[in-house]
C-alpha cells in the first residue's frame, strides 16, 4: 500500500462521497462519521507523502501503469506536497465543525451536502496531485461544479451570485482549456514536464505566448485577481456559512498553486520571467488588487463581505510575491498560500459560528458579541492579528518574506502596498473588535425598554456548539504553531519547492 499513497489521497474521498450518497437514502446518522473517516485517511496519507518527499525527493505515480507522455502521472514535489497537507487539513478541520450546523442548515439534504463536500475536496486534492495539464482542467471543473452547488443553496442573493460564479468560472476554466489547446497544437503533448522539455525548441513563438496569456488569464479569473474578482465577494457572502469556510480558504489558494505550477513547471522560469515582459504588468495588477481590495473592504457593512474583500487583497499578496521573481518573494508567496489558507479558515469559521447564533453578520448586529461568544471571538482575534501580521502568528512571517522580496527586487510600490494593506487590516479588525467589545457600553442606546431588554439579553453567554468550537480553537492554535515553525517550514520544504538557480 505504501507505493499507492498518492492514489489513495484522491480515491478514498471520492469513494466515500459515492458511499455517502448511496447510504443517505437508508441511514442518516453515519454520514458525518464516514466523511470524517475519509477526511482523516486522506489527511494522514498526504502527511505520510510529504514525509516521504522530504526523505527521498519528488514522487511520481503512474496511473494505469502507463509511462508519462502517454498516460497520466502524479508528480508530487515539495511544493504540492506541502499544499496537499494544508488543503486536506483545512478541509478536515472544517468538516469536523459541520456536525450541528449542517443539520440545521441543510436538514433533509444532509447526504448530498456531505457528498458534495467530499467531491469538492477530491477535486482540489486532485488538482494538487496531477502532473497532466488537461487533467488539471477536469479536476478544476469538478471542484468548481460542486462549489457552485454548495454556494447556490444559501439564502437571499445566493442563487444569483452562484450563477454569476458559474458564468465567470466557466469562462476562466474554458480560457485555461483554450490555452492548453494552443500548447497542444505546437507541442503535441499534455504532460507538464514533457511540454517543458519540448518548449525551448520551438521558442520564440506567438502561439506559446498566447497560450501562456490564455492559461494565466483563465487562472486569474478562477483565483479572483482584482479586476476579475467580481464573482467572489457575493458568492462567499451569501453562501451557507460552513460552505464559505470551506470554499473561501481553498479555492483561491489552489488556483494560485495552479499558477505556480503552470508558470514554473510548464512554461519554466526562463520563459515566463526573462523572455517575455509580463512580470511587471502582473506585479502592478497585484499591487492594484492589494490596494483596491483593502479600500473596498473598508466600505463594507457585513462581516463576511469584509472578509471576502480581504481575500481579494490577499490574492494580490501571493500573485505579487510570486511575480517578484526572486527567492524571498517566491518563498513568501508559497508560505503565504499555506498561512492564508489557515487564516481564512480561522476567520470564516468564526464568522460561521456567529452567523449560526445571530443569523446575521451585519456589523450593527454584532455589538456585545465578545460577551456573548467569548471563545469564538478569541479565535477571531487570533485570526485578525494574523491577517494584520502581528509576530507570534504565522501571518507575520510570510509577510516578512514578501517584504524582503519586494525590497530585494527593488519593487517599493509592492512594499508600500503591503504595508498599506496591513494598516487597513488593523483598522478593519479593530473596528470589528470595537463594535464587539465596547458597543453595548455606548450611551447611544437610550431609547426604549425593548432595547434595554435586548441589551441585557445579549450579555447572556450563547457560545457556538461544542463540536464547532473544538476545530475552531484547533485552527487558532495551528496559526500559532505555523508561526513558530515557519522558519523550519521554509528551510526544510519551501526552499526545495523553488528552482535552485533563482537567487
Amino acid at each position, binding site marked *: 500500500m505504501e507505493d499507492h499513497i498518492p*492514489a489513495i489521497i484522491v480515491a478514498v474521498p471520492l469513494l466515500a462521497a*459515492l458511499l455517502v450518497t448511496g447510504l443517505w437514502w437508508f441511514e442518516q446518522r453515519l454520514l458525518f462519521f464516514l466523511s470524517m473517516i475519509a477526511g482523516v485517511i486522506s489527511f494522514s496519507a498526504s502527511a505520510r507523502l510529504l514525509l516521504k518527499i522530504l526523505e527521498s525527493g519528488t514522487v511520481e505515480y503512474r496511473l494505469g*501503469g*502507463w509511462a508519462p*507522455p502517454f498516460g497520466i502521472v502524479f508528480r508530487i514535489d515539495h511544493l504540492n506536497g506541502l499544499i496537499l497537507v494544508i488543503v486536506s487539513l483545512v478541509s478536515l478541520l472544517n468538516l469536523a465543525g459541520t456536525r450541528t450546523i449542517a443539520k440545521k442548515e441543510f436538514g433533509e439534504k444532509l447526504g448530498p451536502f456531505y457528498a458534495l463536500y467530499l467531491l469538492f475536496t477530491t477535486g482540489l486534492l486532485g488538482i494538487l496531485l496531477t502532473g497532466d495539464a488537461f*487533467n488539471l482542467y477536469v479536476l478544476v471543473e*469538478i471542484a468548481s461544479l460542486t462549489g457552485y452547488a454548495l454556494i447556490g443553496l444559501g439564502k437571499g442573493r445566493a442563487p444569483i451570485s452562484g450563477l454569476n460564479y458559474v458564468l465567470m468560472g466557466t469562462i476562466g476554466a474554458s480560457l485555461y482549456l483554450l490555452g492548453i489547446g494552443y500548447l497542444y*497544437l505546437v507541442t503535441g503533448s499534455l504532460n507538464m514536464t514533457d511540454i517543458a522539455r519540448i518548449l525551448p525548441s520551438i521558442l520564440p513563438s506567438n502561439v506559446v505566448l*498566447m497560450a501562456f496569456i490564455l492559461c494565466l488569464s483563465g487562472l486569474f479569473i478562477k483565483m479572483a485577481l482584482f479586476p476579475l474578482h467580481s464573482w467572489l465577494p457575493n458568492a462567499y457572502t451569501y453562501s451557507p456559512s460552513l460552505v464559505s469556510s470551506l470554499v473561501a480558504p481553498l479555492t483561491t489558494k489552489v488556483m494560485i498553486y495552479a499558477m505556480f505550477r503552470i508558470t514554473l513547471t510548464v512554461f519554466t522560469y526562463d520563459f515566463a520571467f526573462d523572455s517575455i515582459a509580463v512580470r511587471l504588468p502582473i506585479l502592478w495588477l497585484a499591487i492594484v488588487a492589494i490596494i483596491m481590495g483593502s479600500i473596498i473592504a473598508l466600505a463594507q457593512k457585513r462581516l463576511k463581505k469584509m472578509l471576502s474583500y480581504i481575500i481579494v487583497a490577499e490574492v494580490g499578496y501571493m500573485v505579487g510575491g510570486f511575480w517578484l521573481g526572486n527567492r524571498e518573494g517566491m518563498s513568501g508567496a508559497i508560505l503565504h498560500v499555506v498561512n492564508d489558507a489557515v487564516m481564512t479558515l480561522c476567520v470564516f469559521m468564526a464568522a460561521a459560528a456567529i452567523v449560526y447564533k445571530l443569523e446575521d453578520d451585519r456589523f450593527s448586529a454584532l455589538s456585545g458579541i465578545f460577551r456573548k461568544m467569548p471563545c469564538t471571538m478569541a479565535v477571531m482575534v487570533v485570526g485578525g492579528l494574523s491577517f494584520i501580521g502581528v509576530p507570534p502568528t504565522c501571518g507575520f512571517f510570510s509577510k516578512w518574506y514578501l517584504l524582503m522580496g519586494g525590497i530585494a527586487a527593488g519593487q517599493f510600490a509592492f512594499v508600500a502596498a503591503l504595508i498599506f494593506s496591513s494598516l487597513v487590516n488593523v483598522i478593519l479588525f479593530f473596528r470589528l473588535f470595537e463594535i464587539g467589545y465596547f458597543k453595548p457600553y455606548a450611551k447611544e442606546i437610550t431609547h426604549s425598554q425593548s432595547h434595554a431588554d435586548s441589551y441585557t439579553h445579549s450579555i447572556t453567554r450563547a457560545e457556538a456548539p461544542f463540536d464547532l468550537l473544538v476545530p475552531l480553537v484547533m485552527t487558532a492554535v495551528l496559526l500559532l504553531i505555523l508561526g513558530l515553525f515557519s522558519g523550519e517550514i521554509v528551510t526544510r520544504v519551501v526552499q526545495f519547492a523553488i528552482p535552485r538557480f533563482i537567487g
Partner: protein
Amino acid sequence: MKLLATIVIFVWGGILFFTSFDFPYWGDGKSPASQHVSPYYIEHAMEDTSVPNIVTAVLADYRGYDTLFETAVIFSAGLACFFLLRVSDRKAPVFRLYRHQSTGVTLRIEKGGRLPENTGEFERIDSVWVPYDLIIVMTCRLVVPFIQLFALYVIVHGHHSPGGGFQGGVIFGAAIILFAISNNLRRSLKRMSERTSALLGSLGVTIYGGTGMLCILLGAGFLNYNALASLPGVDPLTARSLGILIVEIGVGIAVTAVMVWIYYNLSSAGKQDEGL
C-alpha cells in the same frame, strides 16, 4: 457598457486571429500534434489493450483517470441539481386532482378527503386540463424499447465501433426521458424512482472507482487493469480489454441514471410532480 464589451471582444478576437497565422496548417499530418504522442496510441493501442477503437482505448485506459473524474463530474452535476432544486414533499397543496383513467373524469379532493391512491383506476394529476394524446403515447411506447436496445449495443460495442459508455448511457437516459415526456413524470417515477436513479448513479461511479481500487488491492497501480489478470478465469491477454468493458458499463449506468435524475429535477423544478 455594451460598446465597451464589444470593443474588448473585438480586440481579443483580433489578437487570437493574429496568432492563428502561426498555427500549423489545418489537417496537416506533419503538425506537432500528430507527431509526438498520438502515433504511439495509434500504433500500440491494439497490442496493448486489444481494443480496435483507439478512442475507447485511450479514453478508458491510457487516460482512464481523466474519465473517472469525467464520470464524477457528471455525477456531481446530478447531485448538485438535486441539492439545489429538490423541495420537500411535505409542503403538500391544499387539494389534489385525480383523473379516472378510462373515462377522463377529473376528481378534486380537498385536504383530509380519502385519496383513491391504490385503486388502480385513478391517476394523480396537477392541473385540471392535461393534454393526453393517444398517438404520441403509443408511438413512444413502441419506440422506447428499441432505443434502449440500441443504447445497450452502443455501450457494449464501444470496443469495435464509435460509442461507449458515455454515448450509450446518454441514449439510454434519453429513452427514459422520452417516456417521461410522452407520458408524464409520475408514471416515469413509478418505473424508475428518484432513489433508484441516485443509487444507480453512485453505483456506476463506484464500479469505475472500485475497479481502480481493486487493481491496487491486487498489487498493481490505480486503474492498472493488468492486475485483473490475476483473477480466476481472466485471460492475461484480454485483461485490459475486460477492464475497459467493466469501466464502460459503470460509466453507462452512471450517465443513464444521472441524466434521468437531472431531468426529473429540472422539468418539475424539484417538486417531482407531473413534469413537462
